[in-house]
């Protein structure tokens, strides 16, 4: 790594942290810690975007770094904390099945993502191209998290973490999407979160719980 400038090394470090956080989220049982991990992922994402902006002189990336901080470090975790307080699920612990198996599947997914990303990152001219595999891996891990969770809130956090991974992919492959698209995506995420907030209360009112195991009435073929 001697040839790499300092900022590129920093980005690689942050990418590694992002991946670690994705693994941590995969096995975290407590909802509250999950939100904090999500916020930490937001910090890593924002800092790395800002470093890319500084290192490559891409001015508009400062704006998206600021957007990341505002949305994913401040606003969304705050909304989630509020939601947890209001729903009173602060101490909810989820019984995870088979943590070692999940971890192993996660590792397989990481290997798969690196393989899939390899031909693409070969074509990329950005300094951050090595992190594309990590971005794809964190998308896959969040996906896995959504599949393995049985409660509504962790599923949503998995969904948001997946968006983090996608955002990171956009930064590492192309120095970010055009601003208008990025703003649109941010708006969608925010509106989605607000709608979900409303939705959680509806679910709770109806089922007295946010556990999705009550929700298996609708089956194919009936």
């Amino acid at each position, binding site marked *: 790594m001697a040839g790499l400038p300092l900022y590129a090394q920093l980005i690689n470090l942050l990418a590694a942290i992002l991946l670690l956080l994705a693994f941590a989220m995969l096995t975290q049982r407590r909802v509250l810690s999950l939100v904090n991990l999500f916020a930490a992922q937001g910090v890593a994402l924002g800092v790395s975007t800002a470093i890319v902006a500084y290192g490559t002189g891409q001015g508009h990336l400062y704006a998206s770094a600021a957007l990341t901080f505002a949305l994913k470090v401040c606003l969304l975790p705050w909304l989630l904390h509020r939601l947890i307080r209001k729903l009173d699920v602060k101490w909810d612990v989820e019984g995870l099945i088979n943590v070692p198996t999940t971890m192993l599947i996660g590792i397989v997914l990481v290997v798969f993502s690196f393989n899939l990303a390899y031909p693409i990152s070969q074509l990329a001219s950005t300094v951050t191209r090595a992190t594309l595999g990590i971005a794809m891996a964190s998308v896959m891990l969040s996906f896995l998290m959504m599949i393995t969770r049985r409660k509504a809130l962790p599923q949503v956090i998995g969904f948001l973490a997946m968006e983090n991974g996608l955002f990171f992919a956009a930064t590492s492959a*192309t120095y970010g999407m055009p601003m208008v*698209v990025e703003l649109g995506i941010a708006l*969608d995420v925010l509106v989605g979160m607000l709608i979900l907030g409303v*939705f959680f209360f509806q*679910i709770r009112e109806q089922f007295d719980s946010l556990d999705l195991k009550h929700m298996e009435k*609708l089956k*194919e073929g009936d």
Partner: protein
Amino acid sequence: MIEILAVLGFPLAGAALLVVIGERRVAPTVNVAVSFLTFAAAVALTARVIVDGPLLVVITDGPLRFLDHQFFVDSFNVFLVALTAFVGFTTAIFSRPYMRIEQEHGRLTAGRLRLYHSMYQLFNCTMLVALLTNNMGILWVAMEAATLTTVLLVSLYRTPASLEAAWKYFILCGVGIAQALFGTILLYFAAEKLLGAGGGALLWTELDDVKGHLEPTVLSIAFVFLLVGYGTKVGLVPLHNWLPDAHAEGPTPVSAVLSGLLLNVALYAVVRCKVLVEGSLHTTFARDLMMGFGLLSVVVAALLLSRQKDVKRLFAYSSVEHMGIITFAFGMGGPVANFAALLHMTVHSLTKSAIFFTVGHAAQKSGTQIMDEIRGLITSSPMLGWGLILGTLAILGMPPFGVFASEFLILVTAMAEQPWATPFLLASLGLAFAAVFSKVQPMVFGESTAKRLPVRPAMIPVYIHLALVLMLGLWIPPFLAEWYRQAARLIG
């Protein structure tokens, strides 16, 4: 330009207005009026395109400069815009008495109607943005927004089943659409090398110009993600799980616009992507994928049709089947198959929404959506019964309705170009006919169990839709046929 702003502005302003109007009794009428204005604007836009040809918005200065090159109307999306605005309008007419009856039956409070009306308009707006935009990124944003606006509509009744359906809808479509975002990022990544960074590299018109030089490896990976992503919204098997639940548990007007419009818009996104990928790859990769997914959807949906007990689920699976047929036809490609696919998009949308209109009232009359308990519609209300039976015959591909014409063209092309697929298609169509007709026939004829409805249902939209489908089976207006031909050439 002014027409495009009107088409998008009316539903957006209407949504805000309906929030303000809230629970007052005029709200449903205002909803119809706003939908009518949107439709009128869409007609004006269509007329403009008939006169002037394809339209790319170019604004070099002024306050609207940020919209430069952002909207694009060609022969492929113009008829979909008109269709979306039209079905949006007729569904608003249908929903006026329908929602009032629901309210009288105690399934809804007046407060929820405020949510329903404003979300309905917002949903129309997002679909029109998705159709009119020239920017593949904005297309994604609009598709996601369309999901978000309908989540709360699906759970409008707040029953356990409707909440479950809405949750499934949100999570599955959310995950799907995230895959599509990744595909869009990859598309941008490939395009940025040729077109430079910035907004230009996601504009469809620019991408179309350089599609031959886009990096094939990246585009083939991108297409897989885009097809899976938008395909979830189209309801392609095995990503269709949300669709029957959302259709069965949401209010019927929402089922009608989901089936009639949203699936079309999602498929439109897939086809736009396919044009680019095909231009870059020069192989049959994209075609094979689409044919595979399409055929699988047709076969699986046809097999599941006979197991349905709920009438709205039955027709939801029928939508999966028809979307499969259209995807398969686009996958085959060529002038005839594309023409037929575009025609099928139009007639399926009209027929399926008409069927949902009749099914909604039939369920209200019988107090249930279970087919075994709905009997003798034709004796208690002939208009409703005839509407349902004619709509069912139309959707099953009976001549002289338009669905017959498009399915016939698709089958003929399949026999010539993909003979291996024809037996699967024919068997599925036969199975679907047997399953659907044998279930709908006793609902329409026989001893009546139906109650009277407190408000007269609006049956006009049903017959207007069916008349249009009949017309398209016998005679396609020359300008529409010309659009289909041009779009078919464009899709390749």
